[in-house]
């Protein structure tokens, strides 16, 4: 027995469908789009309830965040955001960035004054001295101004560095830790800056054990979806590090996402990151096929080839990193990739490959070529995540092998100047994340935030792809800017295609799921530089309305 019909009216519905571009009304029944057109067209299906609350708004297909990490939700649940970048929290409130140490100390004092248990550590995340003005380290001297007795632990945005106060140094016995990542002043005393996990580990275990992975906390799933939903996403990808193969974690995830009011769909990649061997990867992925629910699905298997460009650990082709000529680190050995990639390919899995720099991408392309030569597969939709230094040659090889990509367009805004000055130099920075070339050559590309690395905000990501502007206002590689329409397609249909879900989501078309994003203004009509500032009124997921604020 079909359910009741709701017709949503809008000032304009942008369908992103290849055949029918615009409408004013969409009829929804049982979470599925029944009709798209005007009110009369929708009325052809019989009695309906007209929902006019978005009559003055613009309805677009639900925005899709194509690469993010559940860790974002855990951080919101377990720690206070105190970073320099503006971020919306799970309540939909804008947390303004704290861009100098004085502001940071003030904010931490506020938080500290509200804490009742005097022994509870104060744990924060998101700090990034490189984005502060002035650039200054965050040491125990600053944090001791907040408290000398309560342990304080601040995880940096990179997740590779932490700043702690004297109380944490004492409780974790840093006097006895010789790891070189424990920075010291001239007298030999620790400064409170801990670089890399070997230096951070005793502090993490002593005062922030919550941050260690594997938590089954229900709030992480809700927060993860909610932060994305508040910025207009209806689907968000959990990019592969989570342990859904662990029964306790899976049941926590299923229970959390099964709630009627769970605010977004999660598409989770299978874990090819912490699972060591191909046999286990395939076994776990196969066991999870079809194990999800309406809001949780498993798709693709994520593998990591190299590190991060801003951390100087991406694998570059010559001449390497600017100035030093050095290169980054492999996450898996190329010799292993030459057997792992074909094994996953042969098992019928879709491979999602983290390749930050160009040599990693080249290696992946080579491995897929081996796999395709041995066992050709059509429509596998293997795709590269980040692919920041892809060029026309690599993209053309990708086209011939059927490999697609989601680009890290946000990098240009947040780290464009850093890359120009420290990692890649002028040319390679201008050529980063080449969305226009990729689209022209027929690669299906999306773009992503990689939250918690940068904030999940699909309109901001879309804006980055369309404008390629740094935070300082410099345009990098104007030829690689895409039109607002193409940028919107990247964040909707193309993302759905990468997730093998373009038959269900990614455009507004009869028969697809009723996932919409409601905007105050038309992103295709406003100046492209204004797109990121368009207010999000809310989302509709499977016909159910979720307010933004």
């Amino acid at each position, binding site marked *: 027995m079909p359910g009741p019909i709701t017709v949503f009216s809008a000032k304009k519905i942008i369908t992103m469908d290849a055949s029918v571009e615009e409408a004013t009304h969409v009829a929804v029944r049982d979470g599925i789009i029944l009709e798209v057109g005007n009110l009369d067209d929708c009325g052809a299906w019989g009695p309906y309830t007209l929902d006019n609350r978005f009559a003055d708004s613009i309805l677009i297909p639900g925005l899709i965040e194509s690469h993010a990490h559940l860790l974002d939700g855990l951080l919101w649940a377990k720690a206070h955001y105190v970073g320099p970048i503006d971020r919306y929290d799970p309540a939909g409130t804008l947390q303004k960035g704290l861009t100098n140490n004085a502001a940071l100390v003030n904010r931490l004092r506020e938080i500290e004054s509200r804490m009742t248990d005097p022994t509870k550590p104060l744990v924060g995340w998101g700090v990034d001295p490189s984005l502060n003005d002035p650039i200054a380290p965050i040491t125990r001297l600053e944090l001791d101004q907040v408290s000398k007795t309560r342990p304080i632990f601040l995880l940096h945005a990179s997740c590779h560095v932490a700043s702690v106060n004297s109380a944490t140094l004492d409780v974790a*016995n840093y006097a*006895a*830790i*010789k*790891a*070189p*990542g424990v920075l010291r002043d001239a007298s030999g005393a620790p400064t409170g800056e801990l670089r*890399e*996990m*070997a*230096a951070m*580990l*005793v502090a993490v*275990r002593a005062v922030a054990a919550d941050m*260690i*992975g594997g938590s089954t906390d229900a709030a992480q799933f809700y927060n993860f979806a909610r932060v994305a939903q508040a910025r207009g996403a209806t689907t968000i990808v959990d990019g592969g590090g989570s342990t859904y193969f662990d029964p306790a974690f899976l049941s926590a995830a299923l229970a959390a996402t099964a709630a009627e009011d769970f605010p977004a769909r999660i598409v989770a990649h299978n874990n090819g*990151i*912490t699972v*060591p*061997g191909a046999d286990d990867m395939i076994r776990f992925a196969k066991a999870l096929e079809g194990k999800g629910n309406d809001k949780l699905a498993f798709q693709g298997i994520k593998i990591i080839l190299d590190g991060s460009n801003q951390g100087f650990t991406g*694998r570059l082709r010559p001449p390497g990193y600017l100035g030093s000529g*050095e*290169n980054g*680190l*492999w*996450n*898996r*050995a*190329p*010799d*292993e990739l030459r057997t792992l990639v074909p094994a996953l390919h042969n098992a019928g899995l879709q491979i999602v490959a983290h390749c930050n720099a160009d*040599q990693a991408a080249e*290696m992946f392309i080579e491995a897929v070529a081996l796999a395709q030569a041995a066992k050709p597969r059509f429509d596998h939709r293997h795709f590269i995540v980040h692919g920041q230094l892809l060029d026309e040659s690599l993209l053309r090889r990708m086209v011939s092998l059927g490999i697609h990509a989601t680009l890290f367009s946000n990098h240009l805004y947040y780290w464009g100047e850093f890359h120009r000055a420290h990692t890649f130099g002028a040319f390679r920075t201008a050529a980063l994340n080449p969305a226009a070339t990729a689209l022209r050559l027929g690669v299906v590309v999306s773009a992503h935030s990689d939250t918690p690395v940068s904030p999940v905000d699909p309109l901001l990501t879309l804006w980055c792809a369309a404008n390629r502007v740094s935070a300082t206002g410099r345009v990098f590689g104007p030829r690689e800017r895409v039109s607002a329409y193409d940028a919107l397609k990247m964040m909707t249909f193309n993302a759905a295609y990468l997730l093998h879900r373009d038959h269900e989501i990614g455009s507004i078309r009869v028969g697809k799921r009723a996932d919409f994003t409601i905007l105050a203004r038309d992103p295709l009509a406003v100046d492209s530089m204004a797109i990121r500032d368009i207010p999000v009124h809310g989302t509709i997921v499977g016909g159910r309305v979720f307010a933004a604020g």
Partner: protein
Amino acid sequence: MTRQIPVTVIGGYLGAGKTTLLNRLLAEAQNVKLAVLVNDFGSVNIDAALISSRDGETINLANGCVCCSIGDNLGLALHDLAERPDGPDRILIEASGVADPAKISHYAESHPRLALDSIVVVADAETVRARADDKYVGDLVRLQLAAADAIVLSRTDIVDAETCRAVRTWIETEIPGARLAASHDLDHGQMFVTRTFESELPLDGAALRAALAALPADVVRAKGIVRLIEAPDRHSVLQFAGRRWSLEPDTAEVGPLERNRSVIVCIGLAGSIDLARLDACFAGVLPSALPAALIDELHQGALRS
């Protein structure tokens, strides 16, 4: 001073022979409880007869050694070992084939109960030169070799002597100061030569430090418990591994009339260590007579206590 567990990192590119080395060390360990942290149990091939029990992430051997899976967090696995009440005498970490062993070695200094002993990098005599020129991994293979306190050449039994010699020469040229051993004589007794220096008299700290700074490159490891003229009321602990060394006073006081013999053990790679040069290094350290002033001091100290 709480006894620290020495940690050795075993590095080297994928397929270099790390696991073979570890299997062998585990099987042949005697009177020493080794704990080995490996990336993948599947590749460890421990003789079933040696296994006494197995639970989840740990395989217990009859000879007291354990083999543990690193899982997805090396630091946690290592700290777990450090905090076991019946902790091991020595920990060996199998670094991943693409890891920079120097970075992994930072974990050996990430806990108060752990101390970095040395970095051993395994290189396949048959393939290491080609790997070092590979466009994808050449820089990594060289980085790994350069991080080594000792390089163990594996598969020297399946390449001919000429190739073996050429590889050794190549490593010595490419990695200045490299210390080399071959794995076919990995049995400790054959692979390493031990030289012990002893003295019944306190040593001159300045002379000892100068000797340590000038030790021949072939000394892989040295350790000692010494009594120094400058700190006669306690023992000092000497540690030397690769290019690093330390000489630090022990916290426990030692009575002036207690036995105060100093012992320093140096371990070098068989066939390459120059024993005469080593002896010459320590010649200036071992005093010929006990200074009269020191005798007085010791006696006064004895009277005070």
